[in-house]
């Protein structure tokens, strides 16, 4: 994979991942072949800031959890009134990290 493209990817999509994951993503992407590179470019990642807004607005209904793919926990959050309101508040702080982890989970099969 061309070095410029990797740097561009890291620059544009860097905010979708945790900071400590970036060097590894950069290394792995440089080693990846052209077809993998093409697939990675088309991957659709979730924006952590948008998830935070969703979590603040409708987190009580578990919609943030549904959106990141934790359907089971989303249902639990919905039927427990957002975990008695406590889980809702906890998720305001966790959801950005969770989104970044889910993005990494999505990228991982193409890197290894």
């Amino acid at each position, binding site marked *: 994979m061309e070095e410029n493209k990797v740097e561009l990817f890291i620059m544009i999509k860097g905010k979708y991942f945790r900071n400590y994951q970036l060097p590894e993503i950069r290394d792995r992407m440089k080693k990846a072949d052209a077809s993998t590179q093409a697939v990675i470019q088309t991957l659709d990642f979730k924006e952590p800031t948008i998830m935070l807004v969703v979590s603040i607005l409708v987190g009580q*209904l578990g919609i943030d959890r549904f959106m990141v793919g934790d359907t089971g*926990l989303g249902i639990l959050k919905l*039927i*427990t*009134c957002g*975990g008695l309101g406590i889980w*809702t508040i906890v998720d305001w702080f966790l959801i950005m990290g969770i989104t970044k982890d889910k993005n990494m989970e999505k990228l991982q099969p193409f890197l290894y």
Partner: protein
Amino acid sequence: MTTSRNTLYVTATILCLSGYLYLLVIYVLHQVYGIDAFGVCMMKGLTTIPCPSCGSTGAIFSLLKGDVQGALTHNPIGLFLAVIMFITPVWITRDVLFKKETFWRFYQEVQTLFRKKTIVAAFVLLVLANWAWNISKTFPL
């Protein structure tokens, strides 16, 4: 994968424990201090509109008295919740004791089930209908 499994077990345990603690607090407040209303729902507190699961506490207490019909009128989600709260601790303890991961596998199966559009649509419709009923109970026409 191990971390997600452990996260699920810890989350479910914390949820169940806080659920039982909450029920205990409500019960003590009712019995000792005679306080009935104890709203923890942020949505109801902020907007006065009840959330889809408001009324579950009442439903569980009705169920404990053996009044299933009363529980259903409070909120049917309460019944579902009561079943989950009863089964989950037993299931998790069994899994931990026998070093199995049946609960984790069941959770994953539920998640796979919810990838089907028809099931998601049915679930959303049910929740919305129940929510509309819940709102109509608070603000009768």
